[in-house]
């Protein structure tokens, strides 16, 4: 079970959080300009990475705020957390 550091509340047990899936998916400004396939990509298609994954978590049983987590899907190690609107950290080499 993970320990996740909420940017506002600090480290907390995973049971306090809700998983939100891949981060940095921006809702298209003009949906009508998209083909069905492009719109389908936005609605359905998600990365299934082995390794570094940028994802959203919400502190559902805490401050109820959403934020971003950089997590390794193999080791489950959380490399960083950052607030919405902040850009993803540089990928560590």
């Amino acid at each position, binding site marked *: 079970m993970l320990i996740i550091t909420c940017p506002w509340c600090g480290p907390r047990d995973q049971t306090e959080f*809700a998983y939100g899936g891949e981060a940095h998916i921006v809702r298209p400004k003009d*949906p*009508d300009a998209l083909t069905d396939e492009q719109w389908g990509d936005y609605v*359905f298609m998600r990365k299934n990475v082995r390794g570094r994954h940028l994802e959203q978590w*919400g502190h559902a049983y805490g401050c109820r705020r*959403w934020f971003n987590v950089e997590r390794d899907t193999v080791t*489950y190690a959380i490399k960083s957390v950052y607030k919405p609107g902040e850009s993803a950290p540089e990928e560590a080499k």
Partner: protein
Amino acid sequence: MSQSHRLPRGGRIDRSRVLRFTFNGRPYEGFAGDTLASALLANGVTLVARSWKYHRPRGIVGSGVEEPNAVVQLETGAYTVPNARATEVELYDGLVASSVNCWPSPGFDLMSVARCFSRLMPAGFYYKTFMWPKSLWMKYEHFIRKASGLGTAPGEADPDSYDKMNAHCDVLVAGGGPAGLAAALTAAQAGARVIVADEQAEMGGTLLASRGCTIDGVPAAQWAEQAVRKLSAMPNVRLLPRSTVFGYHDYNFLTVAERRTDHLPVAARKGARERVWRVRAKQVVLAAGAIERPLVFGNNDLPGVMLASAVSRFTNRHGVRLGQRAVVFTNNDSAYQAALDLHAAGVEVAAVVDARASVLGALPTAARSAGIPVIERSVVVEARGGKRVAGAQVMALDASGERVQGAGRRIDCDLLAMSGGWSPAVHLHAQSNGKARYDEAKACFVPGMPAQAERSVGACNGSFDLESCLAEGSAAGAQAARLTGFDAAPSPAPKIEPATREQPLEPLWLVPSPQPPGHGPKQFVDPQNDVAASDILLAAREGYHSIEHVKRYTALGFGTDQGKLGNINGMAILAKALGQSIAATGTTTFRPNYTPQTFGAIAGPDLGELFEPIRKTAMHAWHEENGARFENVGQWKRPWYFPKAGEDLHAAVNRECLAARNAVAIMDASTLGKIDIQGPDAATFLNLVYTNAWSKLGVGRCRYGLMLDENGMVMDDGVTTRLGENHFLMTTTTGGAARVMAWLERWLQTEWPHFKVYLTSVTDHFATAAVVGPKSREVLKAVCKDIDFSPEAFPFMSYRDGTVAGVPAKVMRISFSGELAYEVNVAAHLGRHVWEALMQAGRPFGITPYGTETMHVLRAEKGFIIVGQDTDGSVTPVDLGMDWIIAKGKDFIGRRSLARSDTRRDDRKQLVGLLTEDPRTVLPEGGQIVKDASVPAPVPMLGHVTSSYFSAFLDRSIALAVVKAGSRRHGEEVQVPLADGRVIRAKIASPVFLDPEGARQNV
């Protein structure tokens, strides 16, 4: 004679405390300090079970978690425990146990006839024999289960309670043997907060069964006692005996099951039976020990064939005389300890049969000095005997070691101790995501690189001698303490006497047999699952090359011991058959739980009323006092209907419906989700989350909204009221309140953080009474003088502030029934007062309280949907015929999806009404709709019934359904076939059965 096989002295047992117990209906006695297994052996009970497949007689093999045969049903009735290992059961006065796998008794087992057919039951016999014809599988399975099953689950509710505890520590030590105690002492003396968990009642592990060994001059068992005393005196240490670390999860989260009362007589048990510790440890020291491997030779499952370590333990720790004459069969030095222990206890050791040549280690030398014959370069090819071992057939190995040669000779014995070496208990390391690696020199799997903050020490690290256990333990304790910020150093190495330096073992995975494979007596690899070497060889021949597949094909490592005893032998035999290395063959996955855990322990206290919050409205007590039947809606208890004397559900609902349509009725609507939305961008936000437009909604007006997900599917609905220019009150479905709140919050925070919109969940702030029916206006007028209820002043879909029954109220004129109706919202603590005032005011009109069932009928008569009942996450507003609610000229969540080629199809399942041919027949909800049920299967499915009721007002049944291209099929005949063979005929109709013009509510 009682305890006929007890040694005259010795053992860590209290001979002054006699404990009486019953096994298979017969009374026995044991001593405090016994396990059920040791007490049975002390009474000469060696036949304790029948094997599951062949019903062969079986005895006690091991002395701990690895025991495959002595699996018992403990106690009876509600307290019964299936599949307890007798080796792990502490004896208590009055204990009742029975064998699980034989009938009527292990000595006279009717199913043992299966042995005659054992050649017909090879690996995979289930799949080969019984899967065809498929239709009979269920029948076969019933009898197979009956013939083979393990224990019986209790049929009554569990009378025990269970506990959970969260704990944090610097260092968790799993295992309280020599390595674990050394680690704990070093870490704790440095000041670290330490938890030590050990599965036994007394910590000390193998030290408690040792004989003649001293640590710094102190007898080993006494050293363990001193260590435990020191630890228990330290405030930074928590000792958890009778506790198994059964799971090692991410981020050093470990689960420990502490058994608190199982060692007590049933009547003396108080408090929680088990407590699961949920431990977050900064550092973990694994000191879980090792499990001795059996040797795989013919009839190695006969009662009286035991692991050498179990022989030592029962002899030294429990003072049991295991036999008169013993043979020890080994490929390593450690088993000589068992020979010496037997010799010291006065048991004749006829021979030690050692597969190795030139055996010169310290223990073998000591054995020879004691006059025990050692037969080198030889093996026991077969145990002889009926219900108990009576002799060992010994043959010499040839130069290759792959075959036996020469004439065999029989050595009479009634005890056969065996040791094939040791398998480190790498389970927790593997669970923590570490990968065990095969160590060729030690011929065992040892822990690999740690994936988490853990290290393995002692026998579970492949370091089997006592010097290494203590040294590694202390070093690991110091390292773990230092990593958590304490100044620690390992303690100096103690002096161990006699030295236990050993010669290396020689791997012996499958004892050569004089007969060709499959022809000699069975050589068991996994006795619990009756898997013999021939089964694994057969699996390999049949093309099963992955160990995971072989496991499932042969059942190797299934059951209560999960391969602790036999798996490594099985993997090695498979490796040899496939001509590859053991390392390349690998192990099956080590998954939690290390040992079987009870459902009670996992559930803990989260049962019944504590499983989930129960939410009750402010009027709940009134409903109870007035005979309401309740139903669960989400976490809420909602009145379902209010039966009068003699009424069933249907009679009550018919009466309630007619009251609402003809006069006035009242419903508690407090459970609807309510979200207070404020801020200058509130209307803009609503435009995005609902399909319809909100900017122009006037203050004081209400509007129904439909919420879609981005896929264009309906996810919630409800009425939202504009309380002020920048202030809305949204209602959601009862079950969807939390989901909608989270949904809105997420969009605001992650997509539109620049919006000035503030959300507050106010569901619990208000109590809501819906007053419904033609007389509702009269009722409201009687209790509220400061609102003008005339149709012109207070039109449909509007809201007014006022004073109802003397208290401030928000009154909405909205309707979920199609009738003139008002919803009165007041502060929750005033809910019952206002409810009673409304009841009082309505009495002249026969005001009738109603529940969710009547609400459903009333809304279905009007064709109003329930999200989640008439929709299922695949339904668009267009499918519901609600095109009118889709605003043009603005974007909203899900809009673009409505233009996708699939959502635009005109033959999607669409909401329709169904009218049965016989108006008395009510269709079952979920019923499948077909055009013609008489055509050959598969009959094309058109859709299904989503809502179905009897409408008292319309005096006929009505139903809603989703049907392919339903909007074009009004008037068409369809059929609903039922499971009992009946076919109900119905006609597709408009989903609005009553007042499509809305005349009833516009009055």
